[in-house]
């Protein structure tokens, strides 16, 4: 089901949680609502679900205006951040709940329900837990049961609020992969909220970046990463060097490859992997020194330092593959020649 939000605004007292948000999500996508905490992403998700009413604007599902429709009639599946499993019911009864509360006419027989619940539990690979209670499960298991429960009513849209937020790092990695695979299998339009840009880039087919109640950019992960629409997106997605370009400090950056002709603003953002290094000869006039480096596994993060510059522009971070760093054979304090391959300019 496609989702269209037009002119959504929501205030909590004096606080504007959302301001004139317009968003279109085509059918079948797996979308991440990404932003720092307090940016309004959860509120937006709850408005799509009908758990919150917007002060202004419309929610259209499949082209139909559902703004006034109650949450129980919207045909959505909602997975809560803390799972919200019914604590007094077994896993089986939790998953069966959505089917059992259907009006008599539409309610399937207990045999059909049992079959369906079992197949959902198999789908989330937890069939053996049917008789347990929620407090006997691990966080990752609860998460998957919550998902199975939401899927039981065959929702047209699946909404997940910080689905991996409360989990251990290792469990989180597994579940991300698993969610993406599940989405490929089911093809239900899905939106999940996250503040973790890595998670958004890894799982989603579309990323929507929110900040202070407004959408900053929407696009495929690659597009957002390679062509950030503004300084906020560039800063929020991935690592970046932020260079406030003043005339005095420009010279060494220009010699490092930033072209003064191409500049469109006062701030240059340079991704660490867009900085290349060469070892400089002893009598080179390059002012940049290698200060330190950190081993991040496949890549090496290198701290560069220009002692001739004062203030924020004196440090740069570069990243390169492990292999290449070994080839360069650099040590702390070595003079290096910096080559900035690409920069994004913002005001």
């Amino acid at each position, binding site marked *: 089901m496609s989702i269209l939000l037009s002119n959504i605004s929501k205030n909590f007292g004096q606080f504007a949680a959302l301001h004139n948000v317009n968003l279109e999500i085509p059918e079948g996508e797996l979308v991440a609502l990404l932003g720092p905490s307090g940016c309004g992403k959860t509120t937006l998700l709850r408005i799509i*679900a*009908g*758990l919150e009413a917007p002060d202004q604007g419309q929610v259209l599902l499949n082209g139909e205006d559902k703004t006034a429709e*109650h*949450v*129980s*009639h919207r045909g*959505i*599946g*909602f997975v*809560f951040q*803390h799972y*919200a*499993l*019914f*604590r*007094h019911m077994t896993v089986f009864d939790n998953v069966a*709940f*959505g089917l059992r*509360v*259907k009006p008599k006419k539409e309610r399937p027989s207990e045999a059909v329900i049992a079959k369906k619940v079992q197949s959902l539990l198999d789908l989330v690979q937890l069939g053996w837990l049917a008789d347990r209670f929620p407090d006997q499960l691990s966080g990752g298991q609860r998460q998957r049961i919550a998902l199975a*429960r*939401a899927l*039981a*009513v065959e929702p047209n849209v699946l909404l997940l609020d910080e689905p991996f937020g409360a989990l251990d790092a290792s469990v989180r990695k597994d579940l991300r992969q698993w969610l993406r695979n599940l989405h490929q299998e089911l093809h239900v339009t899905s939106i999940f909220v996250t503040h973790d840009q890595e998670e958004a880039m890894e799982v989603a087919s579309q990323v929507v970046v929110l900040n202070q109640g407004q959408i900053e950019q929407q696009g495929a992960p690659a597009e957002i990463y390679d062509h950030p629409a503004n300084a906020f997106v560039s800063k929020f997605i991935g690592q970046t060097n932020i260079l406030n370009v003043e005339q005095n400090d420009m010279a060494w950056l220009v010699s490092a490859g930033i072209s003064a002709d191409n500049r469109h603003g006062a701030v240059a953002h340079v991704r660490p992997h867009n900085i290349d290094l060469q070892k400089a000869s002893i009598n080179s006039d390059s002012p940049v020194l290698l200060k330190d480096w950190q081993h991040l596994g496949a890549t090496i993060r290198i701290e560069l330092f220009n002692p001739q510059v004062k203030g924020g522009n004196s440090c740069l971070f570069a990243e390169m593959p492990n292999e290449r760093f070994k080839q360069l054979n650099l040590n702390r304090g070595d003079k290096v020649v910096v080559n900035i391959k690409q920069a994004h300019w913002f005001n």
Partner: protein
Amino acid sequence: MHTLVDAHGQASRSALNDPKWVRVTLTSIAVAFILLFLCAPLVLVLYQAFSKGLDAYIHALSDPDALASVRLTLLVAVATVPLNTVFGIAAAWAITRFDFRGKSLLTTLIDLPFSVSPVISGLIFVLMFGAQGWFGEWLSAHDIKVIFATPGIILATIFITFPFVARELIPLMQEMGFEEEEAALSLGASGWKTFFLVTLPNIKWALLYGVLLCNARAMGEFGAVSVVSGHIRGLTNTLPLHIEVSYNEYDVIGAFSSASILAALAIVTLILKSFLEWKQGKG
């Protein structure tokens, strides 16, 4: 927990493990206090009730006035407890689920009966419904008796006991949050189904606990009821009032045998209360 044993083979003391004499003294004081002020009166009630033998006890309880007072007490409880259960759930729901003007005022007002002397609570109803009260003329014109009659006793008891259920539920429902209810709604459940299938099972032990306390107070209330009842024998005397009247008339057996019923109620309440606390603690 296992005790740490040091090199000398003695159990080492944790920081909170006070010397033996401190523990013994404090425990003795507490036990002595309970024996003197709680157990001794209870034993005395039973002793006095049976001082003339079982026959006298049974005779005192089968006195028509005593039976009438038991009936009235039960009637008051049956009328009061369900009403205050519904009110308590509604108030707890409103306070924990909605934001509205005057919410903190409502929360404070719920505690009013606890902070007002029961005699004042009774007087309020006399002032409202008594012969000289606000509605007095209208009531007597329509031949409706509230004060010195059963309706007045029920009203006063409702007033006195309305905090019990709400006060048990509010903290619990606040702590639980409402994600489970939202989950039920998002799965297509109606409001009523959500309440009966999700909310009620989660609050049931606290609710029963509140109902139990409410019932105990409704049956045992003296002050407020005394003001509105008029002490008409066989008509408007509840069990506590009947005890007082009997005692004032030097009918010791009558007073204490009726008192033994209330004492038995207290013990049953206590046992149920511990059971409910145990249940609540478990889940």
